[in-house]
């Protein structure tokens, strides 16, 4: 005969069941997946390809400058000679073009770390998709509450943690999946892999995405759960998304920003995810920098997850 004791409501099983539910819902709505990928794809295609910063320094830009012959008195030369020397204009032009294009490559290398801007910003789009995906998937708990699903789950003996963790896990898994699509598309569109890239680096990328995803989604879930109006989280997300992206190294290196903006960019977790992913894909791997990135992302994830989960917990057990 059945008795209450035969049931073992467990965190793992509850977490699994609730996460599978979300993933099933998600996969049954491919349009939503597409829409979220579309945005960074458009950015990548339009901005990444149009802002061809590297081309500013190419010789083509000097093509229409005509330089006449230059005549130099022989005593300026090393060693000095007694006649005057005439250097033909086309030769000077050719040498300048050569120099300029060397400088261009060096400027790109020094500023962006890579020779092409597209690779630089395409990686930034990974951070963008992680941010939007985790923020928006926090919204699903608003629907769960509104439709009564949350109350029903709360009336079962499933551990409360499973409810919150399933949301965090789901948001993070989605972010990882979408980031994979973005990276694949970026590669097709011409992302230049660095010489230190191996498939193992992908694990590092997922780890970094996981950390940022957990941090961001924990906070947004707690926030969505506690806000009384469903529009509020949407408004906040659209308000902070752009500033967060521009005040980070997503599009442009931090070192060239004004001081006040640098201050923001240096605490902005997006900067650290972007840098970590760049280190792992397009830059020659700089181990100390990568360790700093991961240390920051870990602290960010731990602090925000603790904060978000405590807030959600208190709401769910009120």
């Amino acid at each position, binding site marked *: 005969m059945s008795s209450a004791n035969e*049931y073992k409501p467990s965190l793992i099983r509850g977490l699994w069941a609730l996460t599978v539910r979300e993933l099933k819902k998600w996969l049954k709505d491919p349009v939503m997946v597409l829409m979220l990928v579309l945005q960074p794809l458009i950015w990548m295609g339009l901005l990444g390809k149009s802002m061809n910063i590297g081309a500013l320094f190419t010789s083509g830009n000097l093509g229409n400058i005509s330089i006449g012959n230059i005549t130099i008195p022989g005593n300026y030369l090393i060693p000095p000679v007694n006649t005057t020397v005439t250097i033909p204009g086309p030769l000077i032009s050719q040498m300048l073009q050569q120099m300029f294009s060397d400088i261009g490559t060096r400027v790109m290398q020094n500023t962006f770390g890579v020779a092409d801007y597209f690779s630089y910003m395409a990686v930034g789009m990974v951070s963008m998709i992680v941010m939007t995906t985790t923020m928006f998937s926090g919204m699903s708990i608003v629907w769960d509450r509104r439709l009564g699903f949350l109350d029903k789950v709360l009336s079962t003996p499933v551990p409360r943690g499973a409810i919150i963790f399933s949301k965090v896990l789901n948001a993070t898994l989605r972010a990882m999946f979408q980031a994979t699509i973005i990276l694949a598309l970026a590669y097709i569109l011409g992302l230049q892999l660095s010489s230190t890239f191996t498939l193992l680096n992908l694990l590092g990328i997922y780890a970094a995405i996981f950390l940022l995803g957990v941090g961001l989604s924990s906070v947004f879930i707690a926030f969505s759960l506690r806000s009384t109006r469903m529009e509020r989280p949407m408004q906040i997300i659209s308000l902070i998304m752009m500033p967060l992206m521009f005040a980070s190294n997503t599009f442009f290196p931090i070192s060239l920003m004004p001081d006040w903006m640098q201050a923001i960019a240096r605490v902005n977790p997006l900067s650290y995810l972007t840098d970590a992913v760049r280190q792992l894909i397009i830059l020659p791997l700089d181990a100390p920098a990568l360790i700093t990135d991961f240390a920051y992302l870990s602290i960010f994830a731990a602090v925000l997850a603790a904060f978000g989960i405590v807030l959600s917990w208190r709401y769910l057990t009120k």
Partner: protein
Amino acid sequence: MNEEVIKAEGLTKVFNKSLVAVDHVNFSVKDGEIFGFLGPNGAGKTTTINMLITVLKPAEGKASVLGYDIVKQANEVRKVIGVVPQEYTADEDLTGYENIMLCADLYGIPRETAKKRAIELLELVELTDFKDKRVETYSGGMRRRLELACGLINRPKVLFLDEPTLGLDVQTRAATWDYIKRLKKEYGMTLFMTTHYLEEADALCDRIAIIDHGKIIVTGAPSELKDSLGGDIITISIKENVDVVDIIRSVEHVKEVKNENGAYRIKAEAGEVTAPLIIEALRKKGYTVTKLSLTEPTLNEVYLEYTGRAMRDIEESREAFRAQRITLRRARGG
């Protein structure tokens, strides 16, 4: 058995520090009965149920379900109760079967047992043919039945039903009542339900409590409450133009007689037995009864008697109101 399955003492819930939704409510539900909370929207029914199913914590007072305290032993309570919420909470993107299995996972019911039960429950609520269809294709009645099945997956000893027929049409509502009765019989549970449909309380409940403004106004069996109004109303007209009030009053069970312009309005217990006696008494004296009508008091009259007004519709809160609208829309859309 006459054991008290649910017991509430001074149960109180206050929202936003000032809105008293449930105000020192006392009641007890006996083993095996269907107990109904009847009241208008915003009376505190759903809040009471949410406290009993451990979703909300009471501000004051205490309650127990099967002897487990709803606050201190919340997890024990959750294991032995089943909940059929007011809203359609089944996930629209999942199939009926997947929804039931999700519930089973939340209770931690062993997989094999859960599969067997899910099939059995789907059979019981006649959804077997639709078990692999997504819930978004279900009608309102089917969704309600699926909710019932989900609420029973853990073989609860107490089942809570919050407005089980909200938004359903008359036929579906009657069918849902049948399911509820059948499920109760099959599993021998105690049922606690809320409703604002008087006929629902009348048709299903063994005992009801009328609640308004967070307070229980009266508790009793529907028939008891009706009797408390003073019994049935019999109206009689006779052919002869004579006052026969005294004759009628002498008949057994008659409590009150009024002559209203030749029509006699009689309050009597057990009207269906008393009416023939009255006719008999009048005929013995040589009078002929030309017209007779018998009205049994409805819960509506009980309700009016105790709350002093008809059922009214006020929104519990923005959120509750919207949730209800969504539920209604889903019910219609399906």
